[in-house]
């Protein structure tokens, strides 16, 4: 198992180096966007957190109330961003206790799913905001 993991790492390093040179692994930008979202949630700045949501995620919560009103009532927990995984224009950030999903747009990375928890192997996460 360890050998398999090592083989994957050895393969991933040059791949990520090449992709990184092409500007395709902006884990720093992703972590920064996730950090701003976590910070806004932590400060109960619902309006600021809503501004960092992707359109589809924001629309998914705006059924009868505004995004800021819904977020203020939800009490979503978003911890400091941990490990970030970026593939193309999509990213996943571990933010204990839950997980964030992000996508890259013209203005930068936006949150497509927050408060996401795994439902089992190969199944999509279940998210409090946005998600599948």
């Amino acid at each position: 198992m360890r050998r398999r993991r090592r083989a994957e790492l050895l393969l991933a390093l040059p791949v990520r180096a090449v992709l990184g040179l092409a500007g395709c692994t902006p884990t720093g930008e992703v972590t920064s966007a996730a950090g701003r979202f976590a910070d806004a949630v932590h400060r109960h700045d619902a309006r600021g957190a809503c501004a960092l949501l992707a359109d589809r995620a924001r629309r998914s919560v705006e059924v009868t109330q505004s995004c800021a009103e819904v977020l203020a009532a939800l009490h979503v927990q978003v911890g400091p961003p941990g490990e970030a995984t970026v593939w193309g224009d999509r990213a996943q950030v571990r933010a204990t206790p839950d997980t964030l999903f992000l996508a890259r747009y013209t203005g930068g990375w936006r949150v497509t799913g927050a408060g996401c928890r795994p439902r089992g192997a190969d199944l999509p996460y279940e998210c409090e905001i946005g998600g599948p």
Partner: protein
Amino acid sequence: MRRVLRDNGLGLAFGMLFLAAVAGQAVSGNADFNARQVADGGQPIGLAAYLTSSAFAVDVAENWQSEYLQFLLYIVATVWLVQRGSPESKPLDKVGTETDEEQKIGRYATSASPRWARVRGRRTAVYSHSLALVMGLLFVMSWGAQCVAGWAHFNSGQLGAFTDPVGWLSYVASPDFWNRSLQNWQSEFLAVGSMAVLSVYLRERGSPESKPVGAAHGVTGETG
């Protein structure tokens, strides 16, 4: 200039067809990619970004690898396998790697033979298989490119579907990787098999891929 064009018409024509087709694939692939991006809540990307994306790379590489595999197998298989009546086959009594005299190597080489066919030893051995070796190398490289680009594209899709990305070995064992590979392989094998058999009975006047129009169905290895 005119003579150069005529003498290299096959290579030049297919080189230009390749460029035109890959340009068309880039434009239509970009439009298709963007349609799916919008449907998935993502953002459309420009042509330049698409050309450097894993989506474009995997679509290109999966076709390249299957073409090089097709030619590699055909080059090697036709050493040992024959098809009675097919111009794609050599004569039935010449199965195998043939004699040095038939292959014009070593002391049977002519003054016009390539140097590596004349010198014998390791260089002649390598040169004797250089076509299959290069085709094999191109196959391995393009299949490897398909594997890496396919992995990146698959994981981007996984994250877009709010699912965990997978490791490289998991991707190599995944249906996505094998479906991409096998769907291309099956079409290549069908085309080669069809060509070997149909050319026994059907003709194209003037084509070296066909027997002469009046050649008997049973004649093997003759081209016109």
